[in-house]
């Protein structure tokens, strides 16, 4: 996984609440068996007008936001389906950071697995940035994970919270499975104890589901 330390990047605005992962990437793009190449599905339906042509008012269709690396949006971003294709598509488009007042749990988790930093700021802070980004071509923010800050072009500084373990993994780009496997002995000890107290959880579902393997 790509590490996230700090970025200064162009900001793209998506001024909608409750954006669900079906909108971020619709079902027809979930048939892939790869993690890459999903940008063409990103906000696929919202990019189009009713007649099928590109909607020039949608931010992703506007040249000024093409190179954006920070997505600024509203409450409860990423609700609905658990599809990790949502962060994969955002990453494929070039987004490394999503700023919103709140996120849905599964999406929030999935971002950290893919080198994307989800930043929760206060609703009024997001609203003020949303107004500024619309009014200011080339509006950029600096997001610093080590210091947990977002800095605006006029040097206003906003602090955000992030879980220390997740922060460390993202900051160093660590392999989460590798970290867990370092605790192999603890897992084995747990399994041995659990098998003694709840043996029905250790039946072999493939061969003899009714009895302990």
């Amino acid at each position, binding site marked *: 996984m790509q590490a996230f330390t700090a970025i200064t990047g162009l900001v793209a605005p998506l001024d909608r609440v409750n954006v669900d992962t079906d909108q971020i990437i619709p*079902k027809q793009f979930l048939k892939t068996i790869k993690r890459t190449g999903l940008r063409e599905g990103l906000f696929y339906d919202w990019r189009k007008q009713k007649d099928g042509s590109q909607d020039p008012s949608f931010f992703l269709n506007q040249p000024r936001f093409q190179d954006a690396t920070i997505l600024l949006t509203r409450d409860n971003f990423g609700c609905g389906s658990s599809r990790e294709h949502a962060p994969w598509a955002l990453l494929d488009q070039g987004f490394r950071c999503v700023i919103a007042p709140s996120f849905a*749990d*599964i999406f929030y988790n999935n971002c950290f697995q893919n080198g994307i930093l989800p930043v929760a700021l206060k609703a009024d802070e997001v609203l003020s940035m949303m107004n500024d980004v619309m009014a200011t071509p080339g509006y950029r923010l600096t997001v610093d994970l080590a210091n947990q800050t977002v800095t605006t072009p006029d040097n206003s500084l906003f602090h955000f919270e992030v879980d220390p373990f997740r922060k460390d993994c993202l900051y160093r780009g660590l392999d989460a*499975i590798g970290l867990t496997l370092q*605790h192999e002995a603890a897992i084995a000890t747990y399994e041995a104890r659990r098998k003694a107290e709840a043996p029905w959880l250790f*039946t072999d579902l493939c061969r003899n589901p009714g009895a302990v393997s």
Partner: protein
Amino acid sequence: MAAQTLFDKIWESHVVRAEPDGTTLLYIDRQLVHEVTSPQAFEGLKLSGRQPRRPSATLAVPDHNVPTTDRALGIADPLSAKQIQTLEENCRDFGITLFGMNDIRQGVVHVIGPEQGFTLPGTTIVCGDSHTSTHGAFGALAFGIGTSEVEHVLATQCLVQKRPKTMEVRVDGVLPALCSAKDVILAIIGKIGTAGGTGYVMEYTGSAIRALSMEGRMTLCNMSIEGGARAGMVAPDEQTLAYIKGRPLAPKGQLFEQAMHAWQQLKTDADASYDMTVTMRAEDIAPQVSWGTSPGMVTGIDQRVPDPRTITNENQRQATERALEYMGLIPNMPMTDIKIDKVFIGSCTNSRIEDLRLAANLAKGKHVAKTVHAMVVPGSGLVKQQAEQEGLDRLFKEAGFEWREAGCSMCLAMNADVLRPGERCASTSNRNFEGRQGAGGRTHLVSPAMAVAAAVEGHFVDIRTWI
């Protein structure tokens, strides 16, 4: 020992290790796998040279992409076929049990887990699917995860978690006739909003919950995620144990007796407390119909489509305006005036035998309106078989419903079952997001009973006065 909630008891018994900051390595007893969210996880295992820690703790089934028409014809869409073939190859390579597309036990992953006795009280269950919350109906801690975490669980049988908060959702009283678990959960989401449960695990309590069948509890827990909660649960009781006993993957004999003793302890202690409690009276719950593009945009059938001009909160007003425009609805029109084109009875929310029995009996002797196309998609091959043994398929077909093979079908329209732009559907599924059932399609979430009545009349009707 301090008084504990049901959630506390399950959580504590699955802690492998905990850091001082609360970061916990949580043991996962069982994982369900389907074709859409697993290929990249298996690819990850292959690339890193890792093996599943306990292949026998995992059960796989294709459901999202499978055709609900004649399976002997194969899958027309090459991408869908490739994804299902990839699942078959991965299960073979890694020694994981698979119920293939032509296996009678195949079905929607959240239908077959309970049906097979894979889902047990007190367990931790995950799946790369947000509706994994369904399994909480058995007093399990069950939640949806992303594909990276699917790989994590395959490789380690663990997940790194922070302890969520607990929310009690208490519903006391007696539901009005023909109001169901679906109406209860839609009403709850309407009350707390789609983010109301974010960061929480819900436990459903109260006399109205106790009175629900296992199928009803599954419907309830299934949609916990639509209220923002990753997991919802109901404490196991005699009904739960009776449901599990004798199922193919459930423990047998002495082992079942031992398990049963442990399961009987799985309930919230009398003096335990939750981080938050929400209460409702069952008598106040009318049959629900969603009017918008989020499951929280829902109201009683005896109400009207909301008027954005009366909403003072600007966010809410804008969201409502946008939803009404997408849905093609006029403010203040009675919900019963909404005409429909399609009816879908199915999905992991409402496709179990109890749902089909109720729907078939309501459809008996009636006929789907000329302007409506209606289909029934059973949750699994076994549900379909049982329904046919009971003659339910005949009742549906005589009433003009199509009777299909098992799968996710038009709940998310990854297979060929899709709404056309502008088409309006009364659906027993769980999500009314824009385009969910097909680009431009309009979804109204309802119970199976309300879906049948709408199919017959061509518009929504109040099921309480329909019969």
